[in-house]
């Protein structure tokens, strides 16, 4: 896992990112562009059938076999409370490494489409206003404008853990 992280880092330099800039992979959900730290991206793969896990929220699509590792898959669309899309050959899963409970885990997120890679200076990342609604502001690391477009940088550690963590607490209680 760490080796792939390193690879990502090398690629990072290979792509000519200038010092002081962070790279973000962006993806589309309902015509909106979201960004995640590219160093967290393990791989991008097509959708394949998952094994549902009983008694979990609908947005947890189940687990998938990723070269011998059992990886949970989460539908970000449903996570944001949007109506689900029919899965097809074009459906994309981004496998991310998430830090929770002091260790690294792998999780796959289902998105509408992968968009682009942007370089953003940390200063250009503006704190998010109170958004209200489904996407609570603690899941948003910040907003950035790239090529006149709005990129919502999400805090995947928070986003993917908040509900799952509370579930764990529930299970333990």
């Amino acid at each position: 896992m760490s080796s792939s992280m390193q690879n990502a880092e090398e690629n990072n330099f290979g792509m000519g990112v200038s010092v002081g800039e962070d790279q973000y992979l962006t993806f589309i959900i309902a015509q909106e562009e979201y960004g995640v730290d590219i160093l967290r991206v393990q791989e991008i793969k097509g959708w394949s059938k998952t094994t549902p896990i009983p008694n979990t929220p609908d947005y947890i699509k189940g687990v998938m076999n990723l070269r011998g590792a059992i990886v949970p898959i989460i539908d970000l669309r449903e996570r944001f409370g949007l109506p689900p899309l029919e899965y097809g050959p074009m459906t994309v899963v981004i496998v991310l490494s998430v830090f929770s409970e002091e260790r690294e885990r792998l999780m796959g997120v289902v998105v509408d489409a992968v968009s682009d890679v942007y370089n953003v200076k940390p200063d250009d990342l503006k704190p998010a206003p109170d958004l209200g609604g489904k996407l609570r502001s603690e899941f948003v690391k910040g907003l950035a404008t790239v090529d006149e477009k709005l990129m919502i940088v999400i805090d995947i550690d928070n986003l993917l853990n908040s509900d799952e963590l509370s579930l764990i607490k529930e299970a333990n209680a």
Partner: protein
Amino acid sequence: MSIDTSEFLDVLMEDSLEALSDMETSLLDLDNGGDDSELINTIFRGAHSIKGGSGMLGLDEVAGFTHLMETLLDEVREGQRKIDMPVIGLLLECVDALRGMFAAIKEGVDNDAVLIASLVERLTATLENREPVMAAPAPVTVSEPEIPKPDLQPEVQIETMLDEPLGFAEAPSEDPLLDLLDLESAASESDDDSTMNALLAPPGDFVTPGWAVQFVPDHDLFLNGFDPLDFIRQLAKLGGVDAKSDVNVLPGLARINPEQCYMAWDINVVTDVGSDAVREVFSPVASQCELIIEPLQEAHANQLRAIIAEQEAARKEQTGQDAVSYLRETVLGESSCDAVEPVMTAEDFGVTEEPVIPPADNETDLLSAMVPPPAEDAVSDINDTVAVDAGELVSDAVDSVPGSESLSAGQTAPAIEIEAPEVEATADSNAAPVSEVPAVTEVPDAQPQVKPAAKPKSKAGARAADRKANDNGGSIRVSTQKIDALINMAGELVITQAMLAQLGEKLEDSGLQEIEHLRDGLAQLERNSRELQDAVMSIRMLPISFAFSRFPRMIRDLATKFDKKVRLVTTGEQTELDKTVMEKIGDPLVHLVRNSFDHGIEMPQDRLKAGKDETGTIELNAYHQGGNIVIEVIDDGKGLDREVIIAKAREKELIGPDEQVPEDKALELIFEPGFSTAAQVSDLSGRGVGMDVVRRNIRDLGGHIELESEQGKGTRFTIRLPLTLAILDGQLVTVGNETFIVPLISIVESLQIQPEHMKTVAGQTELYHLRDEYIPVVKLNELFSIKRHNHSGAEHDLLVVVEGDGKKIGLQVDDLLGQQQAFIKSLETNFKPVTGISGATILGDGTVSLILDAGAIVRLSSNSGT
């Protein structure tokens, strides 16, 4: 020349702890009236190898302590002392104390000085046949002489270590090279220094009177048709030659390969030709030998010239006699004037089968004396008879050098580090001239122990790597047989794979006619993979004797303490189970055995009154049964009293005051938390860790425990455990579109649902009437909220009756598929624990299947029911 001893410490620890276990077992056998002499020898050997090893690494306290034990054991072995209960008890305490010492060394803390001092005093007192003076124990250091450290001259310590003085101990040289030189100097009747200088002094500006040649041929010299003697003859043409053979690495007779050249030569040539001419002589074998040519010192050369003249004369008389016979002469000549050191070395090798070396046999002894442990490559065309003589003596001797394994492994320069264990051996064979085979029983690397340290550095590196590996996760000693089997299977797998690959190419060419072969190949591949998998799994398997071994001692100690008479019978110690399972089952077993002892076995007088043998029996059995291991703990004690148990459970409010408990459920109450039947809290049981913990531990391992008891006759605990935690045998079941795995160990039976046997309670809870039982039914599709498309109705459903947490429930499923071994993967690695699911596995088609946790589902269903 010092070595880093810390590298050997781990090895020593492991070996020592093993030796201690052996000693303990033997002591207990002795206690039970086992065969005396063999057992005593085993104990003696254990003490001896610990002493040797710890002395070598400078663990003076341990070495001194074991020395006392050894002295005591030696008296026993010699028949001077009877081994009786007090002695056995004392020795057992010593074994414990040694374990403590090793633990202290490992932790880097101080020893329990008071305990050790008192034991030392008791040992000394026993040795001196007096009562121990407990008030003023002898200082530990008095009886613990310093043990030679590798960089010290050991002979001084030897004197203090032995009760009787060493007859022949004199300073051994600090370097094997000096040994050679000594021999040589004796032969040439010159003094050590000049000889040493001749070889060690760097080449000066002076014109050399000759050359000192060190010739170390490769072992396969003979195979290439060369005779070392030819080269010496060639050298002799250049001038006067004094050749000395070095038989350092000559193996024992049993291991000797007559086609190998094991020896080396030091040859002094008095000549005026240049070193190139000397080198020229050896040019045919230049690539097959190590050759060192150094100038010979003038003074030495002069002395040599005289001797060589004599020797030349002698050689003419003995035409055809080879270099070794000559060597014998040289050595004999030396033995008359200064035999001290070679004899010392001979003793080093623990010329074990010969307690007293007959003086008449001097020549042979001296020859064997010249064979130190694995040192430099050395070769000689030794005379056959001499080879036999030396070989006989040396073969056993070399094996018995304590720590020879670690030495040969770690040896970078075969110098003084060898001396310490050697001198140890000397001391022992002097004090106790009977057979000794230090416990170099298991050689982790399959190489013969005594072998020239050809690649000492890489070996030492491997050892260091081993040690690192030990630091994280522990190690397993695996028998080479298992590894060989693995290697074979891996090979076959590769072949099968190649076969299929070839077939694939053919298929492309010839269409589908070859499909039969493909099927064969696949079948073979499947078989190979399965075998390989089994073999790999078996590496983690250890015989259960590892877990059983602690009980003989425990029972003995308990019996002594509580004046009970108990015999422990174990069967099936060779039954294998996973190391992880073994580690986790240890404590529950201890608890069960303690329970049997404490609550089961009665006092001898009570047993007699009850018409039983006054000695109680606790049985430990282990055997395999259908992919599980079964461990039984049986005692013939008083059994469990159901009335008492029920009364106790009421008192502890585990059951309601009026609650009726069926006969067969009463016994199960002892597994409830907070239950203890002991009238008094004894030293052993009833300290709060109850049977509930035992049961929980066993359940955590995926096993279960059953209990049978008959009042007055005894109790039997039966533990069933999976052989391993890494894989499980599972039954594939389908619910809707989902496939689940039910562990076979929890399945009681599977049956077709007869709708008329389905009963409903309160309109909700469904029960299935199975023979005389009503079993709650759990509909997996409801429990797991699975949509069932095209469901054909309950009458086609199957019921899988599983047992979890001691309760039975029926799982209603759509269909049963096959059975499969599942490699358990944790859901928690990337997700979180899911109630009712113990893990996941990957099916043949690459999809993930969830493994059901029968116990959790039982709990889940009973919760939802209330």
